[in-house]
């Protein structure tokens, strides 16, 4: 296996990063009311070229990079070092994106043709809701990793994700309720999305409760891993079941964008996407801070922690 011994060339990261950017750009334009065909065609071409170089021609680079990241992330010491380098950039990125997205959404984007200005709440509500959802998915994946490979870092990550995810779910619920008052005339309505979010909030509380109830940190971590893995299956089924339940009773639906997401105007969509990405990065910041704290505590007897603290 001489191939795997070859180091990952720097331009591999460049190619992959460019591919990701192009994918995001395509996603944004796809949401536009009349997608610019030229952009789609050129973008698709670029994407396929990148994919060819990245995944078809040199697939072992991807594999190698994955294996390397996995090992570095799995080692508390490497994780602490890498996350320390990454953290300032993430803070700047999330702060910048959130500032731009929220101010743009609050002050610069046009009002909704039916809801007027109250719709501006979605610039916080939607990012919080999707962040809470993604957070639980991330927790479930960490749970799988921790149970299958007994990776300590994944247990720590679950403990770090839960508080922020629960906060985001609470924010989504509160902002949704306040948005409901001018829109439906009541603070609470058993809308499908709000109900799913409420259950997601309870599931976060369950993971945190289990973590706190078990004294041994390793045991608590593994128990939370199993619960979040079971929970991830539940999240999916809850979503379908609540949708079905909602259609059964024909309640009002929280459709901000009208039927189907495609009708939103780009001038409204752009700030929403920006604040969504800002929220994701902020999630990463919060998780990294908590993970670093927990790693220091758990590894307090090792030499590297003593060196870090000196």
């Amino acid at each position, binding site marked *: 296996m001489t191939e795997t011994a070859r180091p990952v060339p720097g331009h591999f990261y460049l190619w992959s990063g460019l591919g990701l950017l192009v994918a995001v750009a395509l996603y944004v334009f796809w949401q536009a009311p009349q997608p610019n065909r030229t952009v789609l065609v050129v973008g698709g071409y670029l994407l396929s070229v990148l994919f060819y170089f990245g995944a078809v021609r040199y697939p072992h680079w991807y594999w190698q990079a994955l294996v390397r990241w996995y090992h570095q992330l799995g080692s508390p010491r490497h994780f602490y070092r890498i996350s320390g380098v990454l953290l300032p950039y993430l803070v700047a990125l999330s702060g910048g994106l959130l500032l731009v997205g929220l101010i743009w959404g609050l002050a610069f984007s046009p009002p909704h043709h039916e809801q007027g200005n109250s719709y501006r709440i979605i610039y916080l509500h939607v990012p919080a809701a999707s962040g809470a959802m993604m957070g639980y998915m991330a927790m479930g994946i960490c749970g799988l990793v921790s*149970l299958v490979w007994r990776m300590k870092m994944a247990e720590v990550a679950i403990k770090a994700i839960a508080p922020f995810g629960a906060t985001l779910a609470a924010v989504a619920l509160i902002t949704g309720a306040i948005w409901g008052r001018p829109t439906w005339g009541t603070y609470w309505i058993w809308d499908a999305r709000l109900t799913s979010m409420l*259950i997601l909030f*309870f*599931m976060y*509380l*369950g993971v945190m*409760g*289990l973590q706190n*109830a*078990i004294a*041994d940190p390793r*045991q608590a971590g*593994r*128990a939370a891993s*199993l*619960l979040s*893995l*079971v*929970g991830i*299956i*539940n999240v999916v*089924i*809850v979503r*379908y*079941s*609540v949708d*079905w*339940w909602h259609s*059964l009773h024909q309640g009002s639906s929280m459709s901000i964008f009208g039927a189907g997401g495609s009708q939103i105007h780009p001038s409204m969509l752009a700030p929403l996407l920006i604040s969504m990405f800002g929220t994701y990065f902020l999630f990463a910041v919060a998780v990294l801070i908590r993970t670093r704290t927990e790693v220091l505590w758990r590894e307090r007897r090792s030499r590297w922690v003593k060196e870090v603290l000196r």
Partner: protein
Amino acid sequence: MSVFAATLRRELLLGLRTPAEIINPLFFFVVVVSLFPLALTPSPETLRLLAPGVVWVAALLAVMLSLDSLFRRDEECGALEQLLVAPGELYLPVLARLCAHWLLTGLPLVLVAPLLGYMTYLPVEVLDTLWQSLLLGTPALTVIGAIGAALTVSVRRGGILLALLVLPLYVPVLVFGAGSVGRALDGMEVSSVLAVLGAILALAVSLGPFAVALGLRISSGD
């Protein structure tokens, strides 16, 4: 004797020697459902409308409350660690234990439910859907709840925690279970909804015991 049969036999024996464990959930179920007319109204129209939800929520809580002692007794006397050091997969003994638990606590609920449905003015045609949905739903509730019971077995006073863990996991079963009865009440077809309940049951029975076994191992410190 095979592990499955031996475990089933043991659990059934244990259940029959401690009849309170069988009767209490059933009693709870009946009492809770009969509280609703007192709390709301004895009017048949209102009660009929609420009956699917009332009966289902009461059944769900009865199953959940019966689960707290599912593994605790064995944990206290050391039989649980004998189960965990046994050679071979834990799937079969765990499944046998859940089967026995459902036979002793879930099945009586299914059998009594038509009576309670009748007392809450459900039309006789709907009673069929009621017991069918409970027949499919309560075993799923037992299996899903057992995951929570396994994870909290080492936690002292884990009852409230168990509820916090398990109730969100019960949402899909409750929605489709009570929903099927509600649809029957509206005169719509229910076989598709019962099929979904069956799918949830199949998922729970095929994967659930693995999760329960893993939860028990985690609780013992592995």
